[in-house]
């Protein structure tokens, strides 16, 4: 029985119409006024924290609910992999949780889409509780406002394998302190090991360019600038390393996990990390742990790199006062301090880094790393520009790879990368 074409069209429309409504989110709910009564059910989403810190967050939620009767917090956690995809799916479907763990580069597109609450307006009174640099961490160039409470900070030292240093005739007690020393040591390591032991396992990222002293963006934040002489110099030196196998041959396709594994197996002599890694070495590579050397991140700017985590409030939340209160609660000095004592991260609240926990040595490696990191954090910088998206990272990485392989000159490669990133920036 043939069905009339009109009936078919009607059926298709009937099927499609209700669905197309899901995509647009809707502008219901959400006020910027956080001054009302703190009550209601809210959802809080963290980024890969349940596995290790379940009891901490259960306690945190219970404390909050006790402090504000009439509130109920549902805590959900997402795995590390694909976090941005999960956020974008939720944001597009209008199901973004009320309070969300973010990083600056994640908050930028959400803020641009109007999904992040401007905390300068809604929670400006809390500003003084945080380190200035940390508060500014979630501001987006080209927009006014601050879009997340600063949460924990992290930075880490550079680990090196003393046994490999010894074998290459390098003084394991004197690890490289400057880029010149690093590159010289790396070349010697490659020479002495016949190209079998590389010193570095990752191609330079935007953060490395920043730490080398390259200007990443123009002052207005409207265009990228890392193709300057300094940038070309860094890439040229990396090419030297790559040719000498001082940069691992698989670096072009490496991930942080794969290079971490190479360090564990002694195929690579140095690896950046954080205090979290010490545990991993102890468990998975005891012989490496016995020979582990710890030194400062190498930088020519005097400022080490730090990673910043934030807690964002969904601008469409139905319970703005509760969501803001909870986001502040999670990130206040007391709760950040107790979280920092559970795990090797650092609080972003003013004065917390002066706590004896972060200043006094007790002779263990863990404490040494912690105290050194806390000290360096006071002047640390999050080099990765907030507007540097995943697509831009890929573009840079591909161009860097072409330069290392000798398919393009370092200058040409960086020009191309800047061009691609600028094009993507203008499309935003």
């Amino acid at each position, binding site marked *: *029985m043939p069905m009339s074409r009109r009936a078919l069209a009607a*059926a*298709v429309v009937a*099927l*499609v119409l209700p*669905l*197309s409504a899901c*995509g*647009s989110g809707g502008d219901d709910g959400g006020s910027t006024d956080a001054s009302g009564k703190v009550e209601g059910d809210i959802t809080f989403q963290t980024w890969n924290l349940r596995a290790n810190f379940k009891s901490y967050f259960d306690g945190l939620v219970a404390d909050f609910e006790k402090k504000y009767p009439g509130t109920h917090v549902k805590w959900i956690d997402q795995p590390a992999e694909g976090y*941005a*995809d999960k*956020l*974008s799916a939720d*944001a*597009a479907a209008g199901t973004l949780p009320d309070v969300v763990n973010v990083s600056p580069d*994640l908050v930028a*597109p*959400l803020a*641009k*889409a109007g*999904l992040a609450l401007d905390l300068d307006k809604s929670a400006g009174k809390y500003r003084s509780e945080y380190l200035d640099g940390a508060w500014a961490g979630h501001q987006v160039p080209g927009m006014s406002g601050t879009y997340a409470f600063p949460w924990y900070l992290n930075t880490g030292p550079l680990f090196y394998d003393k046994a490999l240093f010894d074998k290459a005739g390098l003084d394991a007690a004197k690890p490289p302190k400057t880029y010149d020393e690093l590159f010289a040591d790396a070349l010697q390591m490659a020479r002495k090991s016949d190209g079998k032991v590389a010193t570095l396992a990752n191609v330079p990222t935007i953060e490395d360019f920043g730490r080398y002293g390259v200007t990443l963006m123009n002052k207005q934040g409207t265009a990228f600038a890392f193709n300057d002489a300094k940038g070309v110099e860094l890439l040229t030196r990396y090419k030297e390393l790559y040719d000498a196998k001082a940069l691992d*041959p*698989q670096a*072009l*396709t*490496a*991930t942080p996990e*794969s290079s971490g594994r190479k360090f564990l*197996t002694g*195929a690579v002599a140095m690896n950046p990390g954080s205090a979290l890694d010490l545990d991993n070495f102890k468990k998975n590579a005891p012989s490496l742990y016995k020979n582990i050397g710890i030194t400062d991140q190498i930088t020519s700017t005097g400022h080490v790199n730090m990673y910043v985590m934030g807690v964002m409030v969904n601008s469409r939340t139905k319970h703005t006062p509760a969501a803001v209160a909870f986001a502040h609660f999670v990130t206040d000095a007391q709760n950040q301090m107790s979280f920092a004592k559970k795990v090797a991260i650092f609080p972003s609240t003013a004065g917390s880094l002066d706590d004896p926990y972060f200043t006094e040595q007790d002779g263990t490696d863990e404490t040494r790393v912690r105290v050194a990191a806390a000290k360096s954090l006071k002047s640390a910088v999050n080099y990765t520009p907030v507007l540097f*998206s*995943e*697509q831009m990272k*890929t573009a840079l*990485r*591909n*161009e860097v*790879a*072409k330069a290392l*392989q000798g*398919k393009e000159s370092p200058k040409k490669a960086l020009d191309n990368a800047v061009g691609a990133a600028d094009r*993507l920036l203008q*499309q*935003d």
Partner: protein
Amino acid sequence: MATPVRPGRPPQIRIRRQLPLSPWLFAAPGLLVVGAFVLYPFVSTLVNSFTDRRTLLPGHFVGLANFRELLHDDMFWTGLRNSTLYILGVVPALVVLPLLLALLVRKDIPGITFFRSAFYTPVVASIVVVGLIWVWLLDERGLVNSLLESIGIGRIGFLSDQWLLLLSAMAVTVWKGLGYYMIIYLAALANVPRELHEAAAVDGAGPVRRFLSVTVPAVRSTMVLVAALSSVNAFKVFSEVYLMAGPTGGPAGEDTTLVMLVQRTGTGLTGRVGYASALSVVVFVVTVALMLLVLRADRREDA
């Protein structure tokens, strides 16, 4: 109450020949599923491909701009090249090798079920697990390279060279697909009449001749099916290359396939949904063209 029946006329049986609604009611659940998960995404991809939509920002109609951009996008041509090479590398192997394998394991000898299951195991294994195992095997310091070094060949950068990476990924696809297509061939082989083989043997045909003149013609339509299935799958390859070449798609992205490019462009908070949709439309068109090509080749041979 019986209706009064006039004498002399047959009783009127009233059957409505057409109930316009009821067949649709029966089909509704299926239609809904198809509509929600096939039609709607398809139409929406098509519509999006003419917009500059971003993950979080609604798009505007931009006409053919996305498709024009495609033509100037080096990465698109890299993807198209790799996906095409993938077909050329994988399909012949997947048409021929499983047939030979099927011929081997259909023999009724003791313990043959073990081999049948063994060849089928890679099919059931998760591609992620399989991918990781091969990454470990082919690593610069992995088992394969250690063996090669010990016999004096030296290490080979399977995972750092653009072409070797693509070849390695193809090898994994073939290895993983063998068992699946072997089963299809086994079913087809069971339908080849034994008498044909016997007659050919009586006429003095050796095993090779019998294979070419009896087996191959008998399973030809299955070969076409396998070619169609495997070429479409090869063109849409993602996991193998993604796992072995890494999220960047090999050094400088040179091993990126079209589907990887769709994923990389269109996902995440800053994903370019419009452009990725345009890429998907191209993948769709090429896939349909491939199917038609293979089926047409089959029909021509039938004629």
